[in-house]
């Protein structure tokens, strides 16, 4: 049967790899091509690479960089960050990227995603949402480029996304990001019941147990993480790692 995917998420800032904490403070991790080569050698299931400034700064994707890491990978890569036009998407796919993630690009208007699905097929488009918890304990969508709440409620947005029919939904907990205290189970349970497409979750993973907890309690297709794969030890020393294939199968009982 289909195996649960375990997916490293790499964040690009000024063409370097960084890791954030709650979407703020960032720590330098290293050279992206190097890290990606290592992940490829470790035969990771898939990679997500996100340019975290592109949307805010309205910059064009770095095609040269994308081409160099796409050529190093014999597993699927999902690329995201400030993608706003079909032309950009066409270029990115041609370079050897399998999926493109759209986040803030879908908050004001659904047109881009609709056209992208028409042109490239739903399986190539990932809808990404950053989610925060308010002081009153309710979840809301966070537009990280504009640093403000999105106009849709989370429930409304999930309904809309399910209707749009994207290939995959990626949710990221801003509050748990980089905190290494586990995933936000409450959030995942809330989202999983509302969508019919594959769901990938991110934010807070610190151990294999965290992966297992989500898998045992929720219906997810993929478990994504940042810190877990690039840091090691109490002082967050940079170390690129990935669990062994057999260990993951045993962990998930697959």
């Amino acid at each position, binding site marked *: 049967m289909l195996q649960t995917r375990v997916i490293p998420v790499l964040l690009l800032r000024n063409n370097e790899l960084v890791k954030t904490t709650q979407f703020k403070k960032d720590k330098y991790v290293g050279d992206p091509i190097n890290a990606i080569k290592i992940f490829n050698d470790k035969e990771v299931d898939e990679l997500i690479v996100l340019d975290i400034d592109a949307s805010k700064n309205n910059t064009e994707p770095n095609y040269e960089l994308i081409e160099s890491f796409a050529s190093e990978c014999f597993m*699927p890569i999902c690329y995201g960050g400030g993608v706003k036009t079909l032309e950009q998407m066409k270029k990115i796919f041609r370079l050897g990227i399998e999926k493109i993630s759209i986040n803030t690009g879908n908050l004001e208007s659904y047109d881009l995603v609709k056209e992208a699905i028409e042109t490239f*097929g*739903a399986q190539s488009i990932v809808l990404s949402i950053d989610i925060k918890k308010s002081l009153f304990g309710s979840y809301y969508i966070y537009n990280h480029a504009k640093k403000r709440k999105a106009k849709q409620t989370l429930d409304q947005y999930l309904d809309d996304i399910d209707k749009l029919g994207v290939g995959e939904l990626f949710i990221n907990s801003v509050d748990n990001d980089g905190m290494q205290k586990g995933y936000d189970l409450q959030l995942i349970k809330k989202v999983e019941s509302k969508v019919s497409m*594959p769901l990938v979750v991110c934010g807070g993973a610190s151990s294999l147990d965290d992966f297992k907890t989500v898998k045992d309690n929720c219906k997810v297709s993929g478990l994504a993480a940042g810190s877990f794969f690039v840091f090691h030890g109490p002082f967050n020393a940079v170390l690129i790692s990935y669990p062994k294939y057999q260990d993951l199968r045993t962990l998930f009982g697959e």
Partner: protein
Amino acid sequence: MVVIIDYGMGNLGSVRNMLKKLGYKSIITSDKDEILNAQRIILPGVGSFDKAMNNLKELNLIEVLNKKVLEEKTPILGICLGMQLLTNGSEEGKEKGLGYIDAFAHKFNFETKDKELPIPHMGWNITTLNENKSFNTTEEEYRFYFVHSFAVTCNNPDEILFETKYGYNFVSAFQKDNILGAQFHPEKSHKFGMQFFKNFLENS
């Protein structure tokens, strides 16, 4: 020369990258003469069935493919949507497929609501080899990366090469004479994909 057909759909760069890694040169083209000279043909594909068939028609590629595949028996590998194009057709569209293999693509349909699984089938899944078929293996178990919402059934069980289970069994690879189809993406399946390509490139 290995020719990767460029009909405007598919991850051509990734296929070429893996071939390069395996030491094989390839060209990405829609030029009829170059296709006529091909020793091996790869038909990739990502997107929708009708658009793909229409693109092939508009580029006038169907005749040359028929000549190469049916007359000259040039080995051809269809990947993902490319595999589905080699069949009689798909529920996804109205166009007829190339009809090289007696098979058809159906949308994943899980009998009851409680048996429903997310669509598309996305991620790594195991393939089981048909005992009656040959495939050079180096690993005990084979897994590949799948991304698709439509799955193939073969009318001739002898043409099934691999089966995979997602709710139920479907044909994840078929093979008949010079025609090979893979529902998964070997170019994105690490060493397993490389071994699959090797089988295609090295067998006569």
